[in-house]
Each structure stands twice: as structure tokens, then as C-alpha cells.
């Protein structure tokens, strides 16, 4: 079947989708957006977390057919999403976001350092993860970024308990949780300064 939906602000069309296929599979294998990670396939690990109509969900548990006509934001679109949110309080126009082609063509440019984030435009939460040393193997990072970004949108000054709860569905097996908490606190603090 064919599924039409919006990914990172751009309309997309996925063809030859199997009826039992997950949104995660469509994103990774059909649209070439491998940012959302495939680990447990049962909603335990959160590494496939995306926003579905603004709500964080495990994309491995959403049937592809269920996203027809709906809006998805993945980690690939997080920087643009955060920018739009900061500038226009949302992305209702549909004109924002990284185009699929641009996302596919993406590569680190000279002068850009993917480890320090230097020269690369990142969302505040992504920058905070780098600055706090919250990225180890990196596999859980995309899901954590999407979940943490959504929490900070809802709750600009979270307590530690709020952070722990918001990230309770995201597993890190390097067990870098302390640094991850540091990163979210840092992003929250920077968000507070900016206002």
C-alpha cells in the first residue's frame, strides 16, 4: 500500500509498504532516514522515538498505515523543528523542516566537526548533549534527544524527577545516564537564560 504523510515538515510518499510494517521501518528503509534507531522492536528501549502529531511515540509500535495524513518529526528534523519553534512558535506552514533529499545528502562538511558540533547547526538539546559528554556509543541518543526536546518544550524548568520520568522509556546501555541528565539540565538552564 501507499502511505502519504509529513516528515520533518515535508510531505512524503512511501510506496509498496507492507500492511504489517512499522513506521520505523518506513522511515529507515523506505525514506532513507536512519536517525531513528531499531533496537528492541517492542517499545522497551525508546531508541526509535519520534514525534507523531507532536506526541513522542515509539515508531516501532506505530503501524505504517496509521500515519496516513499525519505529521512525524524525527531526529533528522530536530534542529529545524527547534529553530522553527523558537522563531515562530511552531511549524504550521509545513514549509519548514529538512527536505528528504537534503537529509539523505547530508555529510559532514569541511570545517564541521560532528564530535564537537563545531560549524554544524544543531538544536539546543543536541548541542547540550555534546557539551555535557552525554553521547557515548550514540545508539540511544536520537531517541533521547527527541524525548528530551519534547519535555523541555512542555516543561521549561524540569526537576530531576521530571527529567527521569520523561526519559524513563529510553534505555542507554553504555549507562551514561548521569551525563545524559547533565545534558538535559544544561539545555534547560540555557533555555532559561535565553528567555
Amino acid at each position: 500500500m501507499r502511505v502519504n504523510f509529513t516528515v520533518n515538515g515535508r510531505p512524503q510518499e512511501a510506496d509498496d509498504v507492507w500492511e504489517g510494517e512499522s513506521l520505523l521501518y518506513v522511515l529507515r528503509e523506505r525514506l532513507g532516514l536512519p536517525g531513528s534507531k531499531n533496537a528492541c522492536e517492542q517499545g522497551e528501549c525508546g531508541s526509535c522515538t519520534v514525534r507523531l502529531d507532536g506526541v513522542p511515540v515509539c515508531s516501532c509500535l506505530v503501524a505504517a498505515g496509521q500515519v496516513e495524513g499525519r505529521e512525524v518529526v524525527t531526529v533528522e528534523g530536530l534542529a529545524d523543528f527547534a529553530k522553527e519553534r523558537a522563531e515562530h512558535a511552531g511549524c504550521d506552514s509545513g514549509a519548514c523542516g529538512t527536505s528528504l533529499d537534503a537529509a539523505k545528502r547530508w555529510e559532514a562538511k569541511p570545517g564541521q566537526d560532528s564530535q564537537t558540533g563545531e560549524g554544524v547547526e544543531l538544536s539546543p538539546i543536541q548541542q547540550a548533549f555534546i557539551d555535557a559528554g552525554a553521547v557515548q556509543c550514540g545508539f540511544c541518543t536520537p531517541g533521547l534527544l527527541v524525548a528530551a526536546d519534547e519535555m523541555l518544550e512542555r516543561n521549561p524548568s524540569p526537576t530531576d524527577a521530571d527529567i527521569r520520568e520523561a526519559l524513563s522509556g529510553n534505555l542507554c546501555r553504555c549507562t551514561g545516564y548521569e551525563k545524559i541528565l547533565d545534558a538535559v539540565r544544561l539545555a534547560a538552564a540555557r533555555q532559561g537564560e535565553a528567555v
Partner: protein
Amino acid sequence: MDFLRPASWEEALAAKAEHPTAVPIAGGTDVMVEINFDHRRPEYLLDLNRIELLREWEVGEENVRLGASVPYTTIMENLRAELPGLALASHTVASPQIRNRGGVGGNLGTASPAGDAHPALLAAGAEVEVESVRGSRFIPIDEFYTGVKRNALAPDELIKTVHVKKADGPQQYSKVGTRNAMVIAVCAFGLALHPETRTVRTGIGSAAPTPIRAKEAEAFLNAALEEGGFWDNGKIITPSIAKQFADLCSGAANPIDDVRGTAKYRRHAVGIMARRQLGWTWEQYRGTGRTLEGAA
């Protein structure tokens, strides 16, 4: 496999009548796991996400009408006063991502003895409104669970609304697991005081082939509270009554040994939860505030 995408409730009922083997999918947090792991290859998936009425809820005079797909997040954020037990249970479901998708209809459809909502529904008192093209009927929650992962639904029926009695007294819910999130209950317990009828109701999860009430324990406690005039005098419940109640709750459980825990441990833990919850809810009842909100 076919993906059926009804735009209305009537279309969904018609589709289910035409294809009784169709597997309804709403939050997908159970169904997609089975499909991802190749444990299930349904001929038809019946997507219920486009049906608005399943996501609606309304607080009435006596009941809360809860659409089958109302996400747990909505319940815990909006219904803490009306459904304190279910709101607490909702908060223990998996993780924010799962609570954003899953709802009580899915718990009832799957009818796993470990479903988090069941003990709260049993304790509060609820009816499940199911419908098919033949008409609708209300199934009392006590008659809904018929076996391990079996329920009273006919093949052509869908779960529409869960009518849960509004709390008329304090309610509690707790669950045993290895951490505070992403836990399938080792066992769970729910307790509701109903001062209006001067009764107490219970619910036990993950400690019998189906979710159950500890009816003997309820009868004992109801009689003991009546006899001692406790509902009127608001005195502290004597430890011997609490112990007897806890023992009877333990006795009502009929658990098995499995990877998550032993039968012996489950029986023990059910008794502990019963005693503690009786203490918490009774303190709340006696307290001047007599607040109906659950304590997380």
C-alpha cells in the same frame, strides 16, 4: 495482510462483521510487538486511530465514560480526582511513549492478567460497552475476563467505551516490579473504598489466570468495618482486621512461578500491598481533607 482503515465507528463495526478475524489496532503497543516478532500474522488489521469517538471521554453524574483509545497519559493528567485508582495505574504503564499511545481498550482487548488497568477497574467498578452490527451491550467488569488472555467479546464485537464508577472515596493502586518504569507487573493490587455503600472493593493483577477481585477478603472487611462502626467513628482499623484482610487477599491469589517471580512471592506481595493500601486509603478517609486524589 489487509489494512482496514474505517473512518467512522459504523464503518469499523461493518468491517469487523465482514472480517471477524480482523485484529483491531489502536495504540499498537501489544499488536505491533506480536507482528514485529512474527508471532502473529493477522489476515486483517483494523485501524481504529481515525475514529474520534474512541478518544473522547466525559465525566457524568455517576460514571466516567472513557473511550477505548483514550491514552493513559490523558487519564493520568485529567482524571485523577474522578478515577484516582485508574490514574495511578495509568501512571505505572511502561513509559511516556507507551502511555501516549496505549489505552484501557487495549488492556481489555488483550486481557492479559498483567494488564495494569485491570485491578483499578475491578476495584472502582466498571462496565465495558461493546458493540457490533447486531447491537451494543454492557459487560460488567467482573464478567469480562474469561481466561488467560481471553475476554467476553464475541468475534464481531469491538470495545467502544469503558464506564467507570466515579470515586466516592479514596482509592489506591500499586504494582511490584524491578524499576519504576517499563515494568510488566510481577503482581499488582488495587483498592477502593466506597463510603456511599459502605463497601470495599479490590482488584488483583498478575497473580491468577485472570485479573480477579478478592471477594472473600472484601466480605470480611465489609462486615468488620460495619460491626466496629468504623465508617461512622473513623477509628484506626485494628491491626488484626488489617492482617486478616491481607491474608484473605493473599489467599485469593492463584499465581504461578515464572521468570518475573515465584508464586510464593506473589502471594506474599499481594498481602503486603493489600495491608498497606488499606492503611493509606483509610487514613485518607479519616483525614479531614478526605481528598479523593491518589497519592503517586
